[in-house]
């Protein structure tokens, strides 16, 4: 496997009022070009932190990230990020939001006309050309996320980083968006790291699923290779035993971790003065898909 992106022994420690808190401890992951990898794990396990380190928005205290033989130490358009909350400029139209990125990234090597066409091309990819002049407030949540993806794609990134891109959407819109993303991925063959809470989403979209252990001191727990032929069809896969096996594997991993976490939490309570960072302090929200009944409905 050629090593396109290497996350090498990454650790990060934040100072807190209760002393230093090690969120990540020795995260190792290698990605091939064109690979689609999902990061899954419980809330507060540091998935977003991994993504932010790859993006260069956070600096690792230990280890580092190497992309195409070069170490990553600052953010850049070669590692475009799709944020959970679209993060479009509310005062710019759909077109202008993408154009801002295009102008910035290609100001030297594309003419004005080419930049215009490139902007339209990327909005075409996400089927948003009918709403070029709309402001983000005037379009739905799914459409905003489409524009966010178009903006990221327009940067022609080496790696596309997606932080729960569909987490805030209703399930019907989410399935549409997943299909769109698979279609785009089939055409452009991007290298993608996506964080998700949704087991079905992870199995459906990924080449590999990286399951992270609970924080603090989170690391890569298990890696699951998803050996399903593409293009993948969600309806056909719902009945597919291999698909269901993969699903069960992920659910099992998350469930075990959940039990461990509960044990540890009750242990911590007895010992008072548990370490809590803003991230780990949030309530242990139910992982989507951990309840089979709801996720089967989702997949059909």
């Amino acid at each position, binding site marked *: 496997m050629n090593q396109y992106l290497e996350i090498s022994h990454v650790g990060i420690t934040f100072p807190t009022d209760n002393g230093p808190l090690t969120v990540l401890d020795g995260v190792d992951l290698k990605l091939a070009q064109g690979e689609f990898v999902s990061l899954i794990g419980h809330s507060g396990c540091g998935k977003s932190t991994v993504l932010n380190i790859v*993006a*260069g*928005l956070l600096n690792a205290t230990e280890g580092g990230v190497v992309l195409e033989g070069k170490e990553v130490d*600052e*953010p*850049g*358009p070669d*590692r*475009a*990020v799709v*944020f959970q*909350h679209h*993060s479009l*400029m*509310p*005062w*710019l139209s759909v077109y202008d939001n993408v154009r*801002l*990125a295009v102008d*910035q*990234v290609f100001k030297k090597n594309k003419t004005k006309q080419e930049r215009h066409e490139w902007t339209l091309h990327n909005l075409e990819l996400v*089927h948003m050309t*009918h*709403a070029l002049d709309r*402001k983000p*407030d*005037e*379009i*739905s949540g*799914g*459409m905003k996320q489409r524009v966010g993806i178009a903006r990221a794609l327009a*940067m022609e990134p080496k790696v596309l980083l997606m932080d729960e891109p569909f987490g805030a959407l209703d399930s019907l*819109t989410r399935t549409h968006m997943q299909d769109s993303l698979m279609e785009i991925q089939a055409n452009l063959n991007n290298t993608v790291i996506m964080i998700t809470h949704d087991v079905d989403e992870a199995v459906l979209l990924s080449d590999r699923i990286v399951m992270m252990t609970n924080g603090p001191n989170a690391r890569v727990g298990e890696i699951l290779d998803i050996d399903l032929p593409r293009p993948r069809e969600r309806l056909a896969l719902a009945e597919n035993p291999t698909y269901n096996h993969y699903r069960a594997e992920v659910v099992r991993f998350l469930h075990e971790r959940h039990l461990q976490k509960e044990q540890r939490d009750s242990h911590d309570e007895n010992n008072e003065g548990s370490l809590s960072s803003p991230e780990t302090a949030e309530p242990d929200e139910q992982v989507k898909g951990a309840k089979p009944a709801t996720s089967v409905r989702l997949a059909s």
Partner: protein
Amino acid sequence: MNQTATMTANPVAERIGQFAASFHPIKVLKNLLVPFIAMMVFLLLWSAGASQVQTSLGVFPGPAKVWEQSLSLWQEHQAERVKEAAFYERLQKRVDKAIAAGKPQEKIDRIKSRKYTGKETFIDQIFTSLITVATGFLVASLIAIPLGIIIGMNQTLYSAFNPIIQLLKPVSPLAWLPLVTMVVSAVYVSNDPMFSKSFLTSAITVTLCCLWPTILNTAVGVAGVDKDLINVSRVLRLGWLTKTVKIVLPSSIPMMFTGLRLSLGIGWMVLIAAEMLAQNPGLGKFVWDEFQNGSSNSLARIMVAVIAIGFIGFLLDRAMLTLQKIFSWDKNAILR
């Protein structure tokens, strides 16, 4: 993409629909009749209450007396204009005569240069006040917006400036005024002054009082830019200037306008007090002069000024609100 179906296809049609809906009989009743009744009740209470108050200048004026005086102030204004027109007509005749008599150009110019020096009317004083407040407010905004942006972008500068701003913000205009008066008298020395000292004193006092809300609100707006948007600018590697112009400024515009509106409101209140003491020929001076004058009509004339001050303050606020609605991207914000 069935999300589009929920959107109205034609925004213009939607606007017209809303406009038409606003004429619905029940809405008209609510929007016009209720405020009308409330105003009538207010006038009745005012009228009844005022007649109970005896002052050394007679009974406190009720609505009828105030209305009468406002008409009289308007007539005085008209009369003054007629007199002014007559003056310039006479002047023109003299100039014509001088030309016909073959007087030297120098002498003609001297005749021409004469200006009408009649008494300032109430209406003139309103305009003086408006010009003074606009000057003070503009100067304050030109200082406060850039300063607010710089302070908002830098936490250290914010910590440095914040205590100073908090200390100066609650200072009354009446405390500034003597200082400003003395400084203006000392510094602004000119044989042919462009502005009168009273104008400068009033305008500078307005500036000093309406700097603070704009500085603070702009700084808070600039500092509060969505973290995700800042991350987007980092991923795009936007330069400092591009980041400021394309992301920080637009995103802080709603807060900036909130500050400007507060400032203008304060400026207008401060102006009246400043004009009273600085003797700038505006509404404040009108009130002061009437108070000193002490005729039987004085109280009613002051009431006219009070209502005019309130009404103009309201219009200024509406004007700022309209500007805010035009420039702010946050169309969902409820502005009132």
